[in-house]
Structures are given as structure tokens and as C-alpha cells.
């Protein structure tokens, strides 16, 4: 694991309510290598966004990282000082969010929103404007010199998402975390944004992408490796071809069946019976057992851990330990 750019070990992040605790990220381990596109896939409420935000500790006041390590270039982000962490956010690790409509400051010109990042991390150099124009060009925004002076409301959703990607890229980070970057966009625009992200990772040496999605089609098209997340836990890890050819965990299998039967209502995935459990009081043993067609007595008693199964890893009692 020494070639990992990001190495997350046994991460737990809980939300503390007035009377209950939401175990949104519960013992999650994952890694991203240099130049790799890694996916996290799972239904709504499985803790994908919570995981993403934990990685650079972009958490609301009621959230706490309870335990675990987030190793990045020799630093443990889980315990790093806030001031040190700010030097990493936007510079080393940046984020692209789900709904581009609401993630730009409505009162600030596009150019200023980009140059703000660059001057924060690289200082106010004389070629600042050139760098800003370059970042807009890098995300294929037509006539970037003009767009500099636009306000967010003057751009379409797809263009806004390109601007957000330009901001994320502007300081040449080693990792971009994209949390459902296309979910809020028109179908035709979705393809363009994904294509853009893919090209960027291919072209920029040293850039990795952690892509969060609930769309297996996106995973197939974009990712090298995938983590399947369910109820705050990773239930399967596999390279993309193994995942689609031989899904190991019954949850992954169910996701694939649902995706293949193309039951999409709006953009929500349907087709797996039941819902993601309440994370304040998750089921005992394997959290998927109440919805699992192969459930055995042990599944509700003991929690399975991730074990190697061929080229994949899965946490399921169907697979006996060697």
C-alpha cells in the first residue's frame, strides 16, 4: 500500500444528534493510488457523502471523526491542525459537489472565484489572470476571457459545473473528490462532464479522482476500481471488470440486477427491496442481512469482515475463510 496517494484506515465518523448518534461512516478503509479513478457506489443514505467530507474534515459542528487515520503524503489528515488542513484543502485535495447551481458564491464574478483559490495557495503572482484563464480553458469553457466577468447566474448548470471543476483543478491538486458531480445535470450534459473528468485524469500526471455515485453506469464508464458502500460500511472492493463480471457481495449483485433491469425513477435507484437501515440503530451482524436473500443465522449474529475472494474483497459470510 506504499504507492497509495490516499490511505484511509478504519475511519469512523459519527453525527451527534440531541438524543442519538448517526454512525454514518463506520470502520471504512479505502485507498486511492496515483493516477487512479476510484469509485464509491451505494444507495442514498449509505454514507458516501459523509465519507467524502470526512476525508478533508469538511464537517458540520455536530460531526466527529471518532477514530481512524487518513494518510496523505505522510500526513494524517484525521489529526492534523485545522490551519495545516486548510493548506491541503483546495491545493492538494479539492472537491466537486453535486449541485453546481448552489455551490458558487452568487455575488462574485467567476474569475474572482477562481483567482481566490490560486492566490490563496500560490500567492498573488503577476500571471494570476493567465492562470485563471488557463484553468477555464482546461475545462473547455468557450471564450474564457469573457466568462471571467460573468456572475454564476449567467451560466448554465453544465457551465457552472465546469467552473467548479476549474476551481478544483486550479491549484493542481493530486486528488479530486467528486460527489455525484453529474446527478443534478441534464442527461446530455452529464456525459460531457464525465468525459471532461476522464480526460483530465488521463492528461494530468499525478491527478487521481475519487468519484462518488449511485449510478453503476457511471462506475463502468469511469472507474478503475470500486468500493461498494452500504449503511456506513464498505461491503465490497473490486476492480471494475471483476465487479461487473463477478459481483461477490449479495448487495452488489442486487445493485447490478436493479441497474440491468433499468428501473430508474427519476434519478433514484430502485429495484432492491427494502431501504437502507437507520444508521442510529443499524442491524446487528451484517447490516444487509434483513434485505439479503441468502441470509443465514450467522449473518445477524456476527459481523463479517472484508476478505480476499479472488481478485475482489467482500465482507460476507457466504465466503468461507481460507
Amino acid at each position, binding site marked *: 500500500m506504499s504507492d497509495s496517494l490516499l490511505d484511509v484506515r478504519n475511519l469512523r465518523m459519527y453525527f451527534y444528534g440531541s438524543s442519538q448518534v448517526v454512525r454514518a461512516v463506520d470502520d471504512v478503509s479505502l485507498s486511492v493510488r496515483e493516477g487512479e479513478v476510484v469509485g464509491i457506489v451505494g444507495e442514498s443514505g449509505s454514507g458516501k457523502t459523509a465519507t467524502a467530507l470526512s476525508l478533508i474534515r469538511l464537517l458540520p459542528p455536530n460531526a466527529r471523526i471518532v477514530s481512524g487515520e487518513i494518510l496523505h503524503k505522510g500526513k494524517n489528515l484525521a489529526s492534523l491542525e485545522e490551519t495545516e488542513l486548510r493548506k491541503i484543502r483546495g491545493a492538494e485535495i479539492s472537491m466537486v459537489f453535486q449541485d453546481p447551481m448552489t455551490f458558487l458564491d*452568487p455575488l462574485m464574478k467567476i474569475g474572482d472565484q477562481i483567482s481566490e483559490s490560486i492566490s490563496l495557495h500560490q500567492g498573488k503572482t503577476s500571471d494570476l489572470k493567465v492562470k485563471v484563464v488557463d484553468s477555464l480553458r482546461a475545462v473547455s469553457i468557450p471564450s474564457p476571457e469573457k466568462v471571467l466577468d460573468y456572475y454564476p447566474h449567467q451560466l448554465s448548470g453544465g457551465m457552472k459545473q465546469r467552473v467548479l471543476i476549474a476551481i478544483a483543478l486550479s491549484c493542481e491538486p493530486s486528488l479530486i473528490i467528486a460527489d455525484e458531480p453529474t446527478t443534478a445535470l441534464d442527461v446530455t450534459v452529464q456525459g460531457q462532464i464525465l468525459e471532461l473528468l476522464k480526460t483530465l485524469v488521463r492528461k494530468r500526471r499525478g491527478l487521481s479522482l475519487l468519484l462518488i455515485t449511485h449510478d453503476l453506469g457511471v462506475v463502468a464508464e469511469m472507474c478503475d476500481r470500486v468500493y461498494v458502500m452500504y449503511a456506513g460500511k464498505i461491503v465490497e472492493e473490486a476492480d471494475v471488470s471483476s465487479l461487473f463480471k463477478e459481483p461477490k457481495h449479495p448487495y452488489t449483485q442486487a445493485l447490478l440486477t436493479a441497474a440491468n433491469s433499468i428501473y430508474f425513477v427519476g434519478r433514484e435507484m430502485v429495484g432492491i427491496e427494502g431501504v437502507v437501515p437507520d444508521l442510529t440503530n443499524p442491524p446487528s451482524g451484517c447490516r444487509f442481512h434483513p434485505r439479503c436473500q441468502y441470509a443465514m443465522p450467522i449473518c445477524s449474529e456476527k459481523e463479517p469482515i472484508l476478505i480476499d475472494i479472488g481478485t475482489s474483497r467482500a465482507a460476507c459470510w457466504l465466503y468461507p475463510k481460507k
Partner: protein
Amino acid sequence: MGGKEPSALANYVVRRLLEGIPVVFAVLVLNFLLIALYPGDPAQILAGQEATPQYLQQIRIIYGLDRPIYERFFDYLWAIFHGNLGYSFFFQEPVTSLILQKLPATLMLLGTAMVIASLIGILMGVEAARKPHSLRDGVVSAVSLLGYSTPNFWLGQLAILLFSVNLRWLPVAGMTTLTQQLGGLAYVADVLRHLVLPASVLGVYQVALIAHLQRGSMLEVLRQNFILALRSKGLSERSIVYKHALRNAILPVLTVIAFDISALLGGAVLVETVFDWPGIGRMVFDAIIAGDYPVITGTFVVVSIGVVMVNLVTDVIYALVDPRIHYR
């Protein structure tokens, strides 16, 4: 698309000014009717209780009270367009020149109160919103509630008792020390010393109001998604709050402050009276006691136009700061 053209802004200002005309006209009509339809003999009101019948007759002719109401209305409009707001029998001076004399003192008082109250109120509101339900937030809310519900004439008297009479730190009343002939900087310092208490007392309500509004508006903005995006860029909380969030949160506050300017003027009447501040408010108070109607209604006209102007300026600022507002 693109930035805003200066000519578009000019157009917008002119259009908003034109929209102000009906409002001012309505004020003038109301003002006129207030005198014309006042129960009793308007000549009696204008001349005062001890007027002789001859004097009353004279008043009727001067004011044309013997002529039909629409003729009088046009005369009244004509006079106002020529800057003639009538004559004060009590002060023995034309109302226009009275108002012009007293206006600077009032503007100084209101301006000082407003600027200081805005700075303090905005700071309090922002700091409270940064940590909702913290001790800091609780203190701001309590201070805000207290300031909101304390009558300023009472607060004024209390302040005079404490700071002027007991501690003798500040002058009791007035705008200048009458017993001394001061010049230059000494004069300015003397006026400032007189200004401290009335401006503070007048500002307390505004601080309370602004802090409360700013807190709410700031909380709203800090919940928005783009704040998360700013944090993901690596910006410090302070620059997120003061550079981005404040700009977004201050606009609604500004509008309410402008709307509330009439409450501030009402407060000024009381505060000027308590502190014997030689401004419009004090003058109106004296005029009300003396039944000096031309002064009261004349001030009403001037103040109304002032309020319309303040709201216009606010709208223009709003449009300048917020690119989403189109100059329709």
C-alpha cells in the same frame, strides 16, 4: 449578458425617481387634507387660541381659506414647488428656512447613530451567527432584546443621570457649551462630547434591530451550499464569513434598515427633546406643544421626501451589489 452598463444604471435611477413621484404626491395630498379637513376652524388652528377676530380674518385671506378647496390645493402645490412650506407664527420665521437651519444638527445625530449602530449591530449579528446557541449568541440575543424594548426617552434620562449628573463625564444637554466661546478643534471636540450620549441612546434600538436581523440573515447564508465549497477551497472561517457570507447576508438587512428609517426619525424627536438637541425633532416637539401647524406639516413633507430618497438609494446599492437584480 456580461457586466452592467453605466447607462443602464442611470436609466434605473431615473425610473426609480419617477416611481417616487406618486408617493411624494400622495404625501402632499395627505398633508393638505390634514390641514383642510381638520375639525374646527383652520384659521383658529393656524393663528392660535388668543387670536382676535381681525387677525383670524387676516389669516383666512393670507391662506385663502375663503376660497374653494381645489383652488387652495393648487396654491399649496405651487407654493411647495417654490420651496415655500408656510410661515411659523411660533418661531416667527418661514418654515423652509427653519428646517434648513435645524437639519444639519439632526443629520449629524442620525448619521452618527446610524453608522455606529450599523457597525456594532452587524458585528454582533455576525459573531452571534458564527456560533449559534453559544454563550456569545445568547449574550447578543439578550442585549438585542433589551435594546429593542427599552424606550429611548427613558434610557436618555437614565444616561443623563449617570454620565452627566453623577459621573460628570459628559455634558447634560445641548449641542455646544453656551458659556464658552470655542473655536476650531476645541469647538469640534465640544460638539462631539455633546453628541456622544444622544447618538448612543438613539443608536441602542438600531443596534438591537440590526444585530437581530444580521444574525438571522447570516445564519441563513451560512447554511447554504456555497459556504461548504468555500471551505473546500481552503479559505479560513474568517474570510468566508467576512468576505463572502457577509456580502450575501447584508443586503436584506440594509433593506429593512432603510424601511425602518421612519422609526429612527420618531426616536430622534424624543431623543432630541430629552437632550435638548437643536434639530428638527426638537423643533417638531416645540411646534406640537405650540400647535404650530405649518412647522409640523412642513417637516412631514420634507421627511417624507427624505424617506423616499433613502429607499431609492438603498435599492440602487442593492442593485449594484447583487448582479442578479436586473434593472427592469
